């Protein structure tokens, strides 16, 4: 294999630049406006994730158990946390690079938080078959506080989402059984951060079926997910000098499973039931620090325009699809609006949403109300990609409407940025954004 020369790289970049100019020249004024808004969201989202991320230099929210156990891995001491090991191993890599400090333990989640923006692009592009959907998906994820706040803290959820999206992207991109195996490995890693990651298998399998690039039997390779998960766990046990044979590993997993079943007996003021997540009943301020008369907040309240749209669509889209499925004479009008390909992409995203809601609906009898709003993070990721796919499709015929919508999303992001990105603000200023008592720390 011949390595590219400097000349080749220059030529490639020149070609890309020329193509970008060509694309820009071909756009209407409305499309240009939308493109500028989306670019601001992506760049702003990246900057807001990185700036001041190490502050405060002490533990916030649930960081302490994850970070201390991540530190344990670096020291070869057993992990006492109640989640699988991979997310903590990622945190420990950050601490190996930067040391045992707030930058060290937030580096891994930040890196994968940024990767999530990129993966949203790929998922949007692959699921809806156009780059515009990808750009919109990346921009929406970049400009949403739910994802920003989890990129800025040493927690597991942001990293889990990143591997989840990666697994689904791999499924959509798979052309052979090797691609399906790559998807299974990534989903196995997601599951090894938090068990709920295993639900990614469902949208991945549906994605493989929809794309129809691999044989239907190749989907069986997704059965590797539990094997990857067990191997990761065995490696982690070995690292901490604990018995790491399959039987001992299985026992650790079963004990932890029983512990999770028992969590319904606990009470936590930050918990919220599943039906409260789509209506922002109790988003959590996951980082807060006060210095002098000003405080810094990183609230997980989402971008309200995107949130409202996603919740309305979760209800409205399946209903509309059911109607056109039953009354076929409506199908033509529906397809005039969205087209079958976009509809398929949307339905896959809804499957992803439901796959990650289902465990909390099913375990309500044992978990009770001991569930938290961040369980909705993977569901919301699918919904944002779904909105992006629909918006990119509608933009072709209703450019001005979409331009207005994207402009509103950007405006909302700018308004909420201070309480997502830990700007130093007074309590009064924060309360202008954190409207309800349940939204405040």
């Amino acid at each position, binding site marked *: 294999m011949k390595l590219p020369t400097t000349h080749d790289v220059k030529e490639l970049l020149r*070609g890309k630049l020329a*193509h970008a100019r*060509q*694309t820009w020249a*071909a756009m209407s004024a409305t*499309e240009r406006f939308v493109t500028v808004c989306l670019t601001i969201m992506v760049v702003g989202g990246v900057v807001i994730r*990185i700036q001041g991320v*190490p502050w*405060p*230099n*002490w533990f916030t929210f649930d960081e302490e158990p994850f970070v201390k156990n991540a530190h344990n891995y670096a020291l070869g001491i057993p992990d006492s946390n109640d989640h699988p090991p991979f997310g903590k191993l990622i945190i420990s890599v950050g601490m190996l*690079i*930067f*040391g045992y*400090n707030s*930058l060290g333990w937030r*580096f891994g989640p*930040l*890196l994968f938080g940024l*990767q999530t923006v*990129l993966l949203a692009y*790929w998922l949007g*592009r*692959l699921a*809806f*078959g*156009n*780059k515009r959907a990808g750009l919109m998906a990346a921009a929406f994820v970049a400009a949403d506080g739910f994802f920003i706040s989890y990129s800025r803290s040493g927690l597991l959820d942001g990293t889990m989402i990143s591997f989840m999206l990666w697994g689904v*992207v*791999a499924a*959509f*991109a798979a*052309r*052979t059984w090797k691609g399906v195996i*790559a998807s299974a490995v990534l989903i196995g890693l997601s599951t090894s951060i938090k068990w709920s990651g295993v639900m990614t298998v469902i949208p991945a399998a549906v994605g493989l079926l*929809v*794309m*129809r*690039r691999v*044989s239907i039997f190749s989907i069986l390779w997704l059965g590797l997910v539990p094997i990857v998960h067990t191997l990761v766990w065995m490696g982690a046990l070995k690292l901490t000098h604990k018995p790491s044979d399959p039987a001992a590993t299985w026992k650790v997993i079963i004990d932890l499973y029983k512990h999770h079943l028992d969590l319904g007996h606990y009470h936590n003021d930050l918990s919220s039931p599943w039906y409260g997540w789509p209506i922002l009943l109790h988003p959590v301020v996951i980082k807060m620090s*006060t*210095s*002098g*008369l000003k*405080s810094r907040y990183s609230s997980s309240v989402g971008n309200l325009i995107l949130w409202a749209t996603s919740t309305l669509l979760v209800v409205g889209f399946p209903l509309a699809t059911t109607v056109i499925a039953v009354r076929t004479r409506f*199908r*033509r009008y529906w*397809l*005039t*609006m*969205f*087209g*079958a*390909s*976009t*509809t398929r992409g949307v339905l896959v995203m809804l499957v992803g949403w439901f796959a990650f809601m289902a465990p909390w609906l099913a375990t309500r009898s044992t978990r009770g109300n001991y569930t938290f709003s961040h369980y909705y993070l993977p569901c919301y990721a699918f919904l944002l990609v779904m909105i992006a796919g629909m918006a990119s499709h509608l933009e*072709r*015929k209703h450019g001005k409407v979409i331009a207005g919508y994207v402009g509103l999303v950007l405006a909302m992001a700018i308004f909420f940025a201070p309480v997502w990105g830990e700007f130093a603000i*007074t*309590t009064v200023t924060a309360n202008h954004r954190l409207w309800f008592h349940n939204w405040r720390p």
Partner: protein
Amino acid sequence: MSPSPDDVATTPTVAAPAEPSQAEDAGAAAQAPEEGEAPPAALASDDKAPAAPVKKDSPPVQPDEREPAPRNVLLYTVFSLLCMGVALWLVFAWMGYKEKYAQQTEGWYLGSTKMIEITLIQADKKNLSCASDQFFGDVHCAYHRDTKPFGTTPENDPHILQPFNTVKNELFLAAGLWQSPVLSGTLPTERFTVVCNYHVIGVLKAVALRWSPTGNFGPVDKSVAVGTVSDCVIPQ
């Protein structure tokens, strides 16, 4: 938007036949191709499918224009992750964050002076109290061990101890906070923090604490540093 030159180059020139029953369906997908062949996302391009008979008076079906999926997506994502990791490392190294945010390792020991940051509200003058018979020179709690008051309050006596937590959640007892010039005037109405020099003069083992004027005193199950504060400022 015009498709990229790369995309054009990879777009299959032959469209897959749509199934007759799905001919009206603009998104009708073609049969799955062999593994490793051209991307069916493009095959599913409905604008390339044979035109289906359209009824009169029915609105035109909007074609789905799927761009062909690129190859090596996973390689791109792995490469971008590595690039972002290196870029972040360079940014943080350049900004000197490692040194700036390195964990302070200084301990609390007798005779030491430590800079502390405390979160307060106005009502903490009255809210916070401790109960102990122990004296450290003139410094003592506002209440005896049996919770009978000594008769003076922290608001007007700089020798009365009160419990506080630092912003890092470290518990300590301090006297003289409210006599600091910065806190003697009108206090902020919202929660605020002050940074002070804290001089450790002793340790209390058996002490009970109260966090509201109407609450009960609760014993603390650990040793708590005792000291005085000075040179307080409200960080701006």
